[in-house]
């Protein structure tokens, strides 16, 4: 048997193609956070406020200590202010992506149980993901890192700001409301899984039932804890056992943790809203919502937001009824609607997703931009901090070299908290210094190789030992594996969300 294993191991070793482990030149750990100037003034821009003020032409934007101080014509700025001449340029709020898996390490799904409410994306934020920098280059300033859709009740989400270079705990956007991923339809019922060990439920009504049951268990759990006496009497009475899964679900039904539920079909969204209403809370958003246009009034009446793809459709049976007019129709029905990426690559060009909402459904341009700024910010509970350009809000904004909904426009600068995290000109300069650093280290490595080839002490071992990471090693499937410049973790996505042929 051991010999068989050896033979197989040799065969596997020989037949596997060598996968290039190419990684980007910039790394978060050695990217110092940009300074926060006391004052910044952007002069003469077209400012898309994403507020009732609409689009203001030829105005100045003044930032003080990381917050927006004023927007208006010919603003006075302190003498030491960083002046940016933005004549001919457009300024928009930073883009907010309310559905992302772009900076999660060690798996997007805890796919084992029907409820994994005890897992926390907060524990696995990948501060080293190059997606953060690349999405800054697309004007994104905050993203909602969601658990995947493998379970009816998934993990707890984490909203981060794109503070490239900061360690995970400093990425976390503290103003965001706590949230959790739910999922309905094909994924939690395991429709498209190669699954040797099917789990309950296997039908849509089963998903509805298990959610209702878990809500009831969580309510019982909360009351057991609340009924446990305090003080001396409490010490003498066996306390109820802690259960992090039920505790998180209890937060949901008590309105302390928002539900962001993956859903395609109208019938199952109606079902989840009915359960929520029975437990007297509101579903904060549905995600994807491909059939949302069928139930706009019902979504609006419940108070559920909708975070959607604009033109992803027909990629599986339950996505068959999707239409491009969906966001516009829901917005017009009074649903708090936003566009999301659900994909680290799409996230770099969300402005074009917004542009499609002008084409499909004829939204006005300013409203279309709100679909990727103000509205998703409101969905995440951070609308009072970001997603719009108005005094007192965080200075999260983007300078575009042209109309932000044009395919010909690009991001020149992206600011988060009044810090310039992306600057196209600086990026181009940085490429030269990176090339120089690379050449210098290559020369050093070549010199040391010449040295060590005369050296009898071979030291050809540690790479494989030290790189052993069972999480990484076990990964067998890589989304868009033809893309280079990504670590496997950066292509992490919700494999249950869109694919079905595995």
């Amino acid at each position: 048997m051991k010999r068989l294993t050896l033979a197989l191991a040799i065969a596997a070793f020989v037949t596997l193609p060598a996968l290039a482990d190419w990684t980007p030149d910039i790394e978060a750990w050695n990217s110092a956070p940009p300074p926060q100037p006391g004052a910044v003034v952007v002069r003469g821009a077209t400012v898309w406020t994403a507020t009732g003020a609409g689009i203001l032409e030829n105005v100045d934007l003044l930032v003080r200590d990381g917050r927006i101080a004023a927007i208006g014509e010919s603003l006075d700025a302190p003498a030491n202010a960083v002046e940016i001449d933005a004549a001919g340029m457009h300024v928009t709020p930073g883009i907010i992506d309310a559905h992302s898996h772009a900076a999660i390490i060690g798996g997007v799904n805890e796919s084992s149980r029907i409820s994994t409410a005890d897992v926390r994306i907060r524990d696995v934020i990948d501060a080293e993901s190059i997606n953060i920098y690349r999405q800054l280059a697309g004007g994104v300033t905050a993203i909602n890192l969601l658990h995947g859709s493998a379970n009816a009740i998934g993990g707890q989400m984490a909203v981060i700001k794109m503070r490239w270079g900061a360690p995970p705990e400093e990425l976390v956007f503290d103003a965001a409301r706590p949230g959790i991923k739910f999922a309905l339809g094909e994924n939690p019922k395991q429709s498209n899984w190669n699954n040797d060990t099917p789990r309950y439920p296997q039908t849509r009504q089963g998903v509805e039932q298990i959610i209702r049951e878990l809500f009831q268990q969580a309510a019982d759990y909360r009351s057991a804890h609340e009924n446990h006496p305090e003080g001396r009497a409490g010490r003498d009475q066996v306390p109820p056992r802690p259960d992090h899964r039920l505790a998180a679900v209890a937060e949901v039904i008590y309105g302390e943790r928002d539900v962001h539920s993956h859903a395609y079909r109208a019938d199952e969204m109606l079902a989840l809203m009915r359960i929520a209403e029975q437990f007297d809370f509101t579903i904060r958003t549905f995600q994807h919502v491909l059939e949302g246009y069928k139930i706009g009034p019902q979504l609006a009446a419940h108070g559920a937001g909708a975070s959607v793809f604009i033109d992803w459709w027909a990629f599986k049976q339950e996505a068959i009824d999707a239409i491009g007019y969906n966001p516009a129709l829901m917005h017009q029905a009074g649903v708090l609607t936003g566009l999301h990426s659900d994909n680290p690559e799409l996230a770099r060009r969300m402005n074009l997703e917004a542009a499609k909402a002008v084409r499909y459904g004829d939204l006005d341009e300013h409203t279309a931009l709100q679909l990727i700024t103000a509205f998703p910010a409101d969905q995440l509970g951070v609308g009072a901090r970001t997603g719009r350009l108005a005094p007192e809000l965080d200075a999260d904004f983007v300078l575009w070299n042209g109309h932000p909904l044009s395919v010909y426009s690009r991001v020149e600068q992206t600011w988060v908290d009044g810090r310039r995290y992306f600057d196209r000109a600086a990026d181009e300069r940085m490429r030269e210094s990176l090339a120089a650093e690379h050449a210098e280290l290559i020369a050093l490595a070549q010199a040391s190789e010449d040295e060590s080839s005369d050296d009898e002490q071979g030291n050809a071992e540690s790479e494989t030992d030290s790189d052993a990471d069972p999480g990484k090693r076990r990964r067998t499937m890589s989304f868009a594996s033809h893309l280079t410049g990504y670590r496997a973790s950066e292509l992490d996505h919700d494999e249950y969300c869109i694919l079905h042929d595995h």
Partner: protein
Amino acid sequence: MRIALFLFALLAALNLPAAELRQPTPDVHALVGVRIVTAPGQVIESGSVIVRDGIIEAVGADASVPPDARVHEFPREDGQDPMVVYPGLIEPYLPIEFPEPEDDAVPPGRHALVQPDRRITASDWPEERIGELRQAGFTTALMAGDIGLLRGHGVITNTGDAGLGVNRLSSQFGQFVSFADRAEGRSFPNSLMGAVALVRQTMDDARWQAQARAAMQRNPAQSRPEWLEGLDDLRPALAGETPMVFESQDLLDTLRILEFIPPGDIDLAIVGHGAEYQRLDALAERPVRHILPLNFPEAPDIEQGQERDVSLEALRHWHQAPENPARILEAGIPMMVTSHGLSAPGQVYARLAVAIERGLDPDAALAAVTTEPARWLGLEDRAGRIRPGMMANLIVVEGDLLTENPAITEVWVDGQRHVLASLEPPAVDPAGTWDLVLGLGGMGDVEATLALEGAPTSMTGTLSVMGNDSPLNEVRVSGERVIATIDGGRFGGSGTISIRLDIDGERARGSGSGPFGEFSVRGQRSARPDDEEAI
């Protein structure tokens, strides 16, 4: 001496009372005329070490040799390095393999990855690895299980050759934890965040169990709480009575662990990963004791014209990793060094030599493998120094210890002398290309090519199996035998694959072993170095 030891071991194995076989004379030794490094930075230029019954009795320039001592002299010729005695090294992290638990072997109410009550027993004794450690000069080690999330208690042991019963110093040190393991397939947890959640839930369950039991004792007239087997064993670590030792996978994992275990009761120690230098500011905010591997990457392969295939990330890490130990100490983070992660524990010297070259203070380097782990393990008065009253755990070496390839001649464990097997001078020159057949028994044969170059005393080589080249870690020629090792990771396994070949002119025959099992090797030389040049 060796025959006596062998007989002793044989008879001990037969379960006869060992006392009947012991020499009636006490076990007394005097190592005389040696340089003695009693502790980092403390040197006696010429003196003696007196050992009685496994304990250091005296040490000093003028320590008198007892009349009943066996005297060990180390005559030196002019120009030869002095013989130096060092305290034996202490390995603060020796993960040992446990068998993977079978799913159906886990009783209800227990999780296969949660085994805080697991203890290393005599039957787990990793004799071969203990032997490797001893030969490398490690005389004490902290052993722990290597699978699961909550992995159980560590055992502190000396590295003598008679099993755990004789060598055990403490079987209740530390609680070992990691976020690295996963359940198989669709079982919980199959993600990193799931693993974190399970550890978090388990720790809270253990705290709950303590409260519930206390409430039950005060007031027995109530419903009995569920009993969670094994979790009581977490209590000492949760109360800070023994360290909680987290094995970190990478820098993000270290930051995760620091956030997961906030400052408080738990006495946290982290087994590091080698890239700590990348965020020292964050780590220095809360200096947690680190057990540091010396897994410096080798220089990347650079092909002419393909320089861009080597990532800047890999180059940076290759360049900076050797500075990691020095920079950690500079940042005020307490540090020990482990040989874990190296293909052989003896590599620790070459790596420390590199770290010293890159700024690590030599005394701090020695402390990181002697006094620092001794203090952490609560063995300050028993190990890590050469001082009367301490265990006679010693290294005898020609010249300095912290050099690339120190010439260790003897390792003493509990006053028991182990003379390292020395290689015979080479009697053959195996340089050239060997066409080999690896016999895998019922699985048939695999062809391989072994290329050896250099003089017999300093050979390097490559093993090619079905077109893929693996460099040999080490090639030694002893008499007519070639002994080569290859990193098992090259073939998707762990540990080392070793090959022994007896050379008979142009023919070779021998055997190999590795993590996958045993195999036979036979073949002949197809080219000598000269022939190759001619081609």
